């Protein structure tokens, strides 16, 4: 009924059930590809078959058991899901089902190859364990500091020129006060909200700046609301209700 061997984990485990006979791993693959109805697979019989085979002594019994338990639990989970009312199982594996036998055969073939490759890898990794690397790694040495002469030059310009006061000769005498513009703003707001652009239309830069300062003071005193939808966007002054 069963051919067990101490070789490659589960690849030598074959089963003979009413619905299927052949290698166990193909059974898994067929179920995964929905080619075999999981509820037709008698899980209890499957486990009993495995346990009988397991009696044969094997070098990698623990590994094989682990793998069997893993796949058998997956089958139990799958079966219990199938017995529940249809729930859309959406996973990464949820690609549309292969429609033609060729497609199915293609995917099964690919999976079988990957499975064989995985077994070969297991052996290869096991053969190569126990190679511990040298513990004599050197701490990296700190390299020479690089200094960009252009940055030194730029720093010199910046540092040595900031001691000079900015020239102010081009500025005319200030002829308007914050108070005057605050009065202007309050007067203008009597007829409703007002944009800052409208307010300063026709003013020179100095007056526009003082008007802004006046608007800020009024807002701080709670006598005006300032609205700006986005940074640097249009600024609107509104009377406080």
């Amino acid at each position: 009924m069963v051919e067990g061997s101490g070789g490659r984990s589960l690849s030598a485990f074959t089963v003979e059930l009413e619905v299927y006979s052949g290698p166990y791993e193909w059974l898994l693959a067929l179920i995964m590809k929905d080619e075999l109805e999981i509820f037709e697979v008698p899980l209890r019989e499957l486990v009993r078959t495995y346990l009988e085979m397991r009696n044969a002594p094997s070098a990698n019994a623990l590994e094989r058991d682990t793998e069997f338990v893993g796949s058998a639990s997956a089958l139990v989970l799958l079966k219990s899901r199938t017995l529940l009312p249809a729930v859309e199982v959406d996973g990464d594996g949820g690609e549309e089902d292969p429609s033609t036998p060729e497609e199915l055969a293609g995917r099964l073939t690919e999976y079988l190859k990957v499975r064989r490759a995985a077994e070969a890898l297991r052996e290869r990794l096991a053969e190569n364990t126990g190679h511990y690397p040298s513990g004599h790694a050197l701490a990296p040495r700190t390299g020479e500091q690089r200094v960009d002469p252009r940055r030194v030059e730029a720093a010199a310009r910046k540092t040595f020129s900031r001691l000079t006061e900015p020239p102010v000769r081009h500025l005319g005498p200030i002829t308007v006060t914050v108070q005057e513009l605050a009065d202007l703003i309050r007067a203008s707001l009597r007829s409703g909200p007002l944009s800052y652009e409208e307010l300063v239309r026709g003013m020179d830069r100095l007056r526009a700046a003082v008007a802004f300062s006046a608007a800020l003071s009024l807002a701080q005193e709670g006598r005006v609301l300032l609205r700006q939808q986005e940074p640097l966007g249009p600024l609107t002054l509104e009377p406080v209700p």
Partner: protein
Amino acid sequence: MSPRPAQLVEAVLLVSPRPVAAEALRSATGLGAPELDSALDELRERYSPEKSGVVLREVAGGYQLATNPLCAGAVERFREEIRPAPLSGAAHEVLACALYLGPLTRAAISRVRGVNSDAVVRSLLERGLLAEVGTDRESPGSPALLTVTDSFLSAAGANSREDFPPLDSLVSDEELARVRERVAAAGEPEDTAGAAG
């Protein structure tokens, strides 16, 4: 007294836990290619598993001194470490996907295996056996592409990805024919008796 080429190479290999490529060995030691080759021949002999507790490995595109697996027990006792748990069957499958079909996305791995593989992928990334290399711009969300790392090659004792048997050689034509047969037979639910190996 000036050191012989093999001595220079040996000293450099001692201070590197990772495999050192031939070019890096040449640039550190100042040796030409033929000198380096004969130095490596000498070291291969000196650090052969039969003679030495330290062996010269040629893995992941470079040369590495490592302990002889025969001595692993003593090393593990010394470091008071237990050998890391072997990888699960699922982890081997995911590595096989990345090695043979990669670089590929998590979703592609899950598709090949027929089960969600995200948790396994995460643990292999943590162990440094898988790494993300770029993204798949053709897929929605540009998911990361995964491939095996130099640590993986080193753990498998491989010099490069070409150092593994071709995927097609792993399953015999006979087996493949049987898969086809079975799939064809699956169309007829009554036929379940098909013999298998």
